[in-house]
């Protein structure tokens, strides 16, 4: 059990870490000052969640790895995030549609963890993170509606963002030996149990945004077992270079 739980918490922590790193690329590049600050604040919340989750994953693993060892000294093949969060930011529309798709999932996952998990430390981290991701979810949904139901150009562009990102969403709801073992041990419901509510909520947002929900059945997957896009490797190279060149460096 312990092995699988550590592996499962890594997935949660890596989703937060990789998306935090992506969003922080917007810092000083935002389309408006308010959105620059918003994306940086969301990145900061996610980074804080990642720190707590990776620390816990290291403790459950029991090999003495701390948050820094896990963030800076794993290779791309050892990361367990979903592919959706490692994709390049694209334009603001791509970023905010990805954020909405992820936030709606994160809320459901943290809700379940906060109230149902047998791991009390995980429940505590989730209860705190839940308040933060609900705030993010309100923000990203509001922007998707604004852009979708905005001008002709903004509508066309976020529809393209949605069509491009949609095939990556199915991975969030996949289950495998790890998630099934964790479910049996009472750590978390199966990922598939979030599908119906997520679909319902996302469809409601898209409807208000006058956007068309893609019907794609393509399934782009692999992140949970370490098979990533090349985008993650470039991102990690930048994120890890300092610690790998000067291990233990502080400033």
């Amino acid at each position, binding site marked *: 059990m312990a092995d699988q739980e550590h592996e499962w918490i890594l997935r949660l922590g890596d989703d937060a870490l990789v998306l935090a790193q992506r969003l922080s690329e917007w810092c000083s590049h935002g389309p408006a000052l*308010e959105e620059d*600050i918003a994306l940086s604040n969301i990145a900061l*919340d*996610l980074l*804080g969640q990642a720190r707590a989750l990776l620390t816990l994953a290291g403790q459950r693993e029991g090999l003495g790895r701390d948050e820094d060892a896990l963030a800076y000294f794993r290779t791309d093949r050892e990361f367990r995030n979903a592919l959706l969060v490692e994709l390049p930011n694209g334009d603001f529309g791509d970023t905010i549609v990805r954020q909405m798709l992820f936030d709606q999932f994160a809320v459901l996952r943290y809700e379940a963890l906060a109230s149902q998990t047998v791991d009390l430390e995980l429940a505590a981290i989730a209860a*705190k993170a839940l308040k933060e991701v609900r705030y993010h979810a309100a923000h990203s949904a509001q922007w998707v509606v604004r852009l979708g139901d905005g001008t002709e150009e903004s509508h066309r562009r976020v529809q393209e963002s949605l069509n491009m990102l949609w095939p990556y969403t199915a991975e969030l709801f996949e289950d495998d030996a790890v998630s099934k073992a964790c479910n049996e041990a009472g750590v978390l419901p199966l990922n598939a149990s979030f599908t119906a509510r997520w679909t319902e909520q996302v469809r409601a947002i898209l409807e208000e945004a006058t956007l068309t929900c893609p019907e794609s059945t393509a399934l782009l997957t692999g992140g949970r077992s370490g098979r990533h896009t090349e985008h993650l490797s470039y991102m990690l190279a930048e994120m890890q270079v300092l610690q790998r060149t000067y291990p233990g460096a502080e400033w």
Partner: protein
Amino acid sequence: MVSDRIAQVERILDGVMDPELPFLTITELGMIQGCDLDEDGTVVIRLTPTYSGCPATDAIQDDIKSALQPVEPRFRIDIVHAPAWTTDWISAEAREKMRLNGIAPPEGTSADKAFLLGKSHTVPCPRCASEDTRLVSPFGSTACKAHYQCNACAEPFDHFKCF
């Protein structure tokens, strides 16, 4: 003896200010969840972060250490996540200090969840007290604040989010 040591630590903690809100102590913000002695006689301070990623949490730990070390070298800081920090723990006096320093304090309690549903509370202007204000951005200068502007006196101001 034991209670003397705890009382002394609590007195010192009452003097540690928040780095982002330097007119409020970390106790007034509800970040100290308690102090007690462990079996080795070490004073354990239970500190809760406001937001998961709040960078001030590290600075606050450094400030606690430099304040305590000269008088009480045997202490440890434990970061606790449960129960999750809420603005409900901010005292009425602290809310008034925020207002006097140009920050609109959290309104109501976190339980009504209005902020999550996009139905923001009425946030009175800390400068002229007008209730005719508008949300400029749900994210502000720090994780704990949103950005507002007063329609009556045009003052831009921070609102400490109800969380």
